[in-house]
């Protein structure tokens, strides 16, 4: 693969990766949100694979495959199952409306570019230049987490955050060592399973999964 083709493909995948996060803010059907999340998993898989091919490292390709299976396959599947069990289809009115959310996403992306300048300057390779995208997804994930009210949307927010961090790890340093990456993926999977079980219990206790119901404990 030529250097320019590699750069273009990498930028394309990074662009899709960011776009998927923005789409999550835009859509309100929960099923669509899960589909977009799966798509973002594919973009992440592509980024990791491109890096592996470019650096000719087989271990990286193996990690990329693992990430693809987990983030484009297993996690969306788990969420679809949770969705089917819940019978909920739409996000209720989010705390911030869609137009304002999209503007915020734009602002967060600019912020990500500003914050990550020193990171890019340290090693201005094509991969590092795409790195602010990962940071932007982290910020958008955090924003989703604090403004959405359905339990499932919060889980998606958390996973966006996590996808963003994995992207930063790949773009900055070609991923962390394998054993750490394994541990991280395992933790993420378990965290999602835990949240799923808690959602079931929440439904048993409250009848639905609106986070607004969670306000008995306060000072």
């Amino acid at each position, binding site marked *: 693969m030529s250097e320019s083709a590699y750069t273009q493909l990498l930028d394309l995948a990074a662009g899709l990766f960011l776009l998927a996060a923005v789409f999550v803010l835009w859509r309100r059907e929960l099923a669509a949100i899960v589909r977009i999340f799966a798509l973002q998993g594919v973009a992440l898989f592509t980024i990791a694979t491109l890096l592996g091919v470019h650096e000719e490292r087989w271990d990286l390709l193996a990690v990329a495959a693992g990430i693809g299976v987990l983030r484009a396959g297993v996690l969306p599947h788990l969420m679809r199952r949770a969705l089917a069990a819940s019978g909920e289809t739409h996000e209720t009115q989010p705390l911030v409306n869609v137009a304002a959310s999209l503007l915020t996403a734009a602002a967060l992306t600019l912020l990500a570019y500003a914050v990550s300048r020193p990171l890019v300057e*340290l090693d201005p390779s094509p991969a590092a230049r795409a790195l602010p995208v990962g940071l932007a997804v982290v910020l958008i994930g955090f924003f989703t987490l604090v403004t959405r009210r359905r*339990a499932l949307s919060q889980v998606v927010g958390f996973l966006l955050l996590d996808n963003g961090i994995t992207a930063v790890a790949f773009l900055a340093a070609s991923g962390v060592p394998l054993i750490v990456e394994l541990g991280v993926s395992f933790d993420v999977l378990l*965290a999602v399973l835990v949240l799923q079980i808690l959602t079931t219990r929440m439904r048993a206790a409250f009848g639905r999964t609106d986070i607004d119901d969670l306000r008995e404990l306060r000072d």
Partner: protein
Amino acid sequence: MTPATTTALLTAPIALPLATAGAFAASARARISAWAGLTSPAAILGCGIALAVAVTHDGPVTAYGRLLRADALTVWMVLVIGAVALLACAANPAYLAHEQAAGHATDRSAWQYHTLVHTFLAAMAAAVLAANLGLVWVAIEATTIVTAFLVGHRRTRTSVEAAWKYVVICSAGIALAFLGTVLIYYAARQAGVSEASALDWPALIAGADRFDPDVTRLGIALVILGFGAKAGLVPLHAWLPDAHSQAPAPVSALMSGVLLAVSFSVILRYKVIADLALGTGFTRALLTGTALLTLALAAALLLGQRDYKRMLAYSSMEHMSLIALGAAVGTPLAISAVLLHIAGHGLAKTVGFLSSGHLLHLRHTTRIGRVRGLLTHAPGLGAAFGLAVLALLALPPFSLFASELAIARAGFADGMGWAIAVALLLVLAAFAAMSLRTARMVLGPAPVAPGTPAVPVRIGAAASLPLVAGLLACAALGLSTGPLTGLLSTAAAIIGGH
């Protein structure tokens, strides 16, 4: 010491609790006594003592090609985990017997509870024993996953709510810590540290002076924010009062007594890297700001507190902020005070939470206003709860007195007088709030309910033994650190470099 012995000593604190957890999980049918749960904390404590001897004699020891490593700081944390876990696990049988008698727990939830508690202990031991900061992160995140079910153990509306907030806030916070870890890894790789050792703590320290300052600054800020979330520091502290007040009493004791401190010990590790790469100013400013904000928030919420378990939770935030303030000062004196404070707080808060659990069983309420005359109604329990709060208020002879005094002294000596002065004012407010609330609960005549004989309630030897032991240990530590002095000063020398 032979390599095989070292390996065994470093492995056992993780492996034995895991084995205990497995045994309880397998005991779904063939029931094993709840007292068997004492083996794993006893193993942790025993290994901690043996490691203390080894480390003071020969310096840091490693196993599995530097995957596990123990230096003086590790050993101190292992000892604290072991001691607090021993008290908490000794309280488990009484707690579960009571829950089962009240119909809140079944045999099934009892063995699940034991399995989770011992996995939790293994994860905490792994977090302090791992030399690779990536693995440390994995272990800390594992504690979140395991304790989530423990927080939600009773499956009431409030405990589900607490568990949800806990998992979401802590996972998001700890994810930021991972981003910070990645950035430090990036800085290390760019500074020429080899891929295999770029997350290895000793290797990072060796190369830290070559790290790019801008990247390191961003990474450290994220790490302090992230691990600070699990240590109960602002701005991601909101889970703490909910989780600590809803979890079963022995779990609250473990979470407040050691989990917060274990997370903070990771910040101490990163602080050494940051101080080498950036000078001490950056972490000092960050930790001082976080500490004072946390302290102000805790003091304000203590002033209006009406729930005694939440009162203990906010007191944890108060003490974590003092620990952060001591770390901000960062001199060897301040660091040894911080470590002593971690131990003293762990012991005192364990007694506090365990006795609050008995109190809940006795009075069926966590409202401060509904508890009166505890000392007349249940003298043993009232005395334990009262003394635990006195220890938490840092009155002598308990060790928190010595450590708070030392933190203040170190701060004044190192030009942080204004921050210490502000902190002392806030601590005074917290002191007033807690002592007033506790006095109202403990003192006075016992409530007279129609039809109940006015006989003092006894909580029994099994329940009171951990309370007495915890208070005695906390007082003994306040009078003299004894054989631990060497360990404490070595640990302080590792972290408090300047």
